[in-house]
């Protein structure tokens, strides 16, 4: 019973990371129908930026905020500069471009920072809270940060006019244009936001898995599984999916399939959802029948 609770709680912590990354994936997919294979590497690169800032002496939370701002700007730039010229290109071209981005980000990070595995600081104290031994301070803190970020994003989209315009532009770009909304810029904003959310995921997971250019490939896979489970056009589904996958991964890893097959589990989930119920638990159908 002890381990079960501990596994659940640490599962929720990593689940929060998956939820954030899955939310970023869903935000981009909802607006553009694109699968952003580079989401993980973007998050990894943001985390390295944070690390550089911290190494330069910037205290943690200001570095965190600055990283979010820089990641937002980077996401916006990528949409306007790299993606805008190829709007409407066939699926293969888009996949190739995203893979190209993935590979460039991965190698540039490796070049600038080398491939040595590094520790990444956690803003939370090393002793577990309240003297218990089920969950570390970082895990609890990560859950808190994730939930805070998700609530902020929700509030932005639900209650602000700009958030409303972005939702409108994603749902019905033509009608949004007729209302005077510059849909291209709304997409760029969406990209900026998604990249910033990914940065949060990276900074929360780095203390657990340690910082290295390849740290996000497994996380990305779980995030994809989470986004698909929740319904790849449903942000709430993505968040639910993230926590669900986190806990499931931990429990199955501890009790059923062992630590070594966790990625295979993610793969199985992805294929199962795509083949059996492509709309996920909460989404709309996305697969065309031939």
């Amino acid at each position, binding site marked *: 019973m002890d381990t079960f609770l501990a596994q659940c709680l640490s599962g929720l912590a990593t689940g929060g990371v998956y939820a954030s990354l899955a939310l970023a994936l869903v935000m981009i997919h909802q607006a553009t129908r694109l699968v952003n294979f580079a989401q993980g590497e973007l998050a990894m690169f943001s985390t390295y930026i944070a690390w550089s800032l911290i190494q330069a002496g910037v205290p943690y939370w200001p570095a965190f905020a600055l990283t979010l701002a820089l990641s937002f700007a980077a996401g916006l730039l990528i949409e306007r500069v790299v993606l805008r010229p190829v709007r409407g290109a066939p699926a293969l071209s888009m996949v190739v471009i995203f893979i190209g981005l993935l590979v460039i980000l991965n190698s540039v990070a490796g070049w600038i920072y080398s491939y040595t595995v590094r520790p990444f600081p956690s803003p939370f104290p090393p002793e577990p809270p309240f003297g218990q031994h089920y969950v570390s301070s970082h895990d609890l803190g990560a859950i808190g940060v994730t939930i805070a970020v998700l609530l902020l994003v929700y509030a932005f989209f639900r209650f602000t006019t700009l958030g409303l315009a972005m939702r*409108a532009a994603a749902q019905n770009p033509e009608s949004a*244009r007729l209302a005077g*909304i510059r849909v291209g810029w709304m997409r760029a904003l969406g990209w900026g936001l998604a990249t910033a959310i990914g940065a949060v995921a990276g900074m929360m997971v780095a203390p657990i898995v340690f910082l290295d250019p390849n740290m996000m490939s497994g996380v990305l896979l779980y995030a994809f599984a989470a986004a698909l489970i929740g319904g790849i056009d449903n942000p709430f589904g993505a968040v639910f999916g993230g926590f669900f996958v986190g806990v499931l991964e931990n429990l199955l890893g501890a009790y059923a399939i062992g630590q070594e097959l966790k990625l295979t589990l993610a793969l199985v989930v992805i294929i199962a959802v795509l083949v059996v119920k492509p709309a996920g638990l909460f989404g709309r159908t996305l697969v065309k029948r031939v």
Partner: protein
Amino acid sequence: MDELLRVEGLQAWYGATQVLHGIDFAVAAGSVTALLGANGAGKTTTLRALCGMVTTRGAIVFDGERIGGRAPEEVARRGVAHVPDGRGTFLDLTTEENLRVGGFTRGGRRALAADIERMYGYFPRLGERRAQQAGTLSGGEQQMLAIARALMLRPRLLLLDEPSFGLAPKVVAGIFEILREINREAGVAMLLVEQNAAMALDLADHAFLLETGRIAMRGEARALRDDAAVRRAYLGY
């Protein structure tokens, strides 16, 4: 005539197919102009051409400024609101959110509140359903919502694409009444594309008849409506 919109030699293409073969017309400020014609004549294409939604050649001058070739969102920001065929409702947003989207370029929440109330004044049914998801509104209500959403732009020219489509006659009559009221009170000029020629001619000041991408007939709406020979030959009633 105080010209708000002037179109000269307008040609338009859907992909590779040329739909408009050079049309000329003008819309006076504050007036209602009907654009009539059978299916496939090019009526919807004309509205889309004005908004930059299709490839065009020729001059489109709105309030002294050439708007041909501008992106739809830029045309909208200059005061041309388009109520598209199919209504273009944001189905997943609520009624009120639809209106807020319509007024996005005019300011934030508080600035729009008064405008939104004015819309509910014109369309009380929308006020009753303000928190309801727009996709669940009836056809007539969605049409009203589309018009209200377009009016949130505070346009000087309102383009309407077949507002009567798929609606019961009584509902259509109600909507046209409101359009007349809006035209009189707010002085919004309207370019009305309609297959229902009778109702359109009732509301309009001027009318044009499109036939396969060219203007076949033009004149005062009243004259066309009263001339039985013209009506029978061109408008089928």
